[in-house]
């Protein structure tokens, strides 16, 4: 964990409202593992604005990539960043995804939830399948990267404008059936809205495989100090505890989470 002044290398518009931001972040980038995130001080917000957390969506040498959606003030300002601008970044933060799947990795992405999964796909020893969902075609992102890595990609949109019409869990159900039929074990990795994560978690339990869920909880400090981002969790012995998503997560195994 370190606090560095990153320098904007490039900012690329993806689909409407989505951006890719590349930052030269040196050692921070080099230390990063998939599923970890950075805590960004957005320039030009007023001095007292809190930092914003973003998953690391990829790393190339000392360059860190963030894939984000403009949803408010902070991300709105971020979209105006230009090459050469300095951005204060704390990271890498959080635990990250485990990198030794016990079966075929099945990645489930909802909207910008694809970000940590892109990084994950580039680091997993074993190839698998990406199930990418979103409201509409524009919310299904970065799938080419997966294909380039040799991953299979399936898509679903709620309005049917791209891939299957419906929720991404429909794809997941089919994929789990297919794997079961072929006698293969799955290992689920998911990032997206809570509703999706919960649904993926239920599938993991039902299928008897592990499901790694990356939670998107609003944060303040990002380092475990403020207790803003808590989540009720369950230990293996069944006792409950209150974890900090920033410090104990953001990735939890489906069975750990008490929704």
């Amino acid at each position: 964990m370190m606090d560095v002044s990153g320098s904007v290398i490039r900012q690329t518009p993806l689909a409407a409202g989505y951006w890719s931001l590349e930052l030269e972040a040196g050692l921070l980038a080099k230390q990063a593992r998939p599923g970890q995130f950075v805590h960004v001080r957005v320039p030009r917000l007023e001095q007292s604005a809190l930092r914003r957390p973003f998953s690391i969506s990829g790393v190339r040498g000392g360059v860190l990539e963030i894939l984000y959606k403009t949803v408010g003030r902070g991300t709105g300002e971020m979209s105006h960043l230009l090459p050469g601008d300095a951005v204060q970044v704390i990271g890498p933060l959080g635990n990250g995804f485990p990198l030794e799947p016990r079966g075929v990795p099945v990645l489930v992405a909802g909207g910008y939830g694809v970000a940590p999964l892109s990084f994950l796909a580039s680091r997993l020893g074993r190839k698998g399948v990406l199930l990418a969902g979103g409201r509409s075609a524009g919310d299904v992102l970065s799938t080419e990267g997966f294909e380039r890595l040799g991953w299979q990609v399936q898509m679903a949109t709620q309005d049917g404008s791209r891939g299957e019409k419906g929720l991404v869990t429909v794809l997941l159900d089919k994929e789990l059936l297919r794997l079961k039929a072929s006698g293969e074990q799955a290992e689920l990795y998911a990032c997206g809205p809570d509703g999706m994560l919960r649904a993926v978690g239920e599938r993991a339990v039902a299928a008897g495989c592990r499901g790694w869920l990356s939670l998107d909880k609003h944060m303040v400090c990002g380092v475990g100090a403020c207790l803003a981002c808590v989540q009720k969790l369950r230990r293996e012995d069944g006792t409950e505890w209150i974890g900090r998503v920033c410090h104990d997560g953001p990735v939890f195994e489906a069975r750990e989470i008490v929704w």
Partner: protein
Amino acid sequence: MQEADLRVELGGIRMNNPVTVASGTFGYGKEYAELIDVTRLGAITVKGIRLQPWPGNPVPRHVEVPGGMVNAIGLQGPGVDGFVREYMPFLRGTGVPVIVNIWGTTEEEYAEVARRLSDVEGVAGLELNISCPNVKEGGHAFGTDPRTAASLVAAVRRATRLPLMPKLAPNVPDIKVFVRAAQEAGADALALINTLPAMVIDIETRRPVLANKVGGLSGPAIHPVAVKLVWEAAQAATVPILAMGGIMEPGQAIEFLIAGATAVAVGTANFIDPTTPLRVIGGIADYLRRHGMRSVKELTGSLISG
């Protein structure tokens, strides 16, 4: 010119410099240890601790507002024994005085927490939280009536010889009444201010944004309010004051010292720029040098108000 002397004594707590962190904004020190050199702090003040582990409030526990944030963490913590076991080894290792912020729902609970911390090596003093707006019982209830506050301070006083520093509630008409009450009951120092009671409503859902409905406002928005209270408190105080509220830059800490504080605490700013406490220490040293002062003590209460 020689470096100015930054050392201060805060009611028995000896600090190498007048800068600590505000309770609840720096965890138990450990969380920020990779980001800044915590051994350079004047003291480390930890998150509020009660007798037993406490779950705090449901989420959302915070919301950003102009000039700061509103929080309703609700004093989640591992309880006094858990704290001593899990965190004191690290804290002791820093060599920095540790100020433990304590709370309870009864006088007895406060006193018992104080008693248990009395002989813990490394604990330099206790900050009595009688002003947290985020818990239903305890906290705030003790801080808004001078007699209740005095009785509580006296009870804890009987339980410990550790330096005792009540943290006063800001939403009172006359802070001096509380200053006197706390002093007479045996306080060694005073801390102010805690967050201001506040609320944010989501107009689309028509619900309070915080699960706890109300919370406490912190950050630069409250700084001018804090300066006023510290200045007023200093006029009635015979014991030293630890000032906090909205420090983002050294200048805001220096205002507190000029107003009469002996030491300051950096709170919300830690979340935004964790180097703030160290920048504040540096800024105070610079200021003293530029103004030809040999000790930070010369700055305390140096307001010219004729």
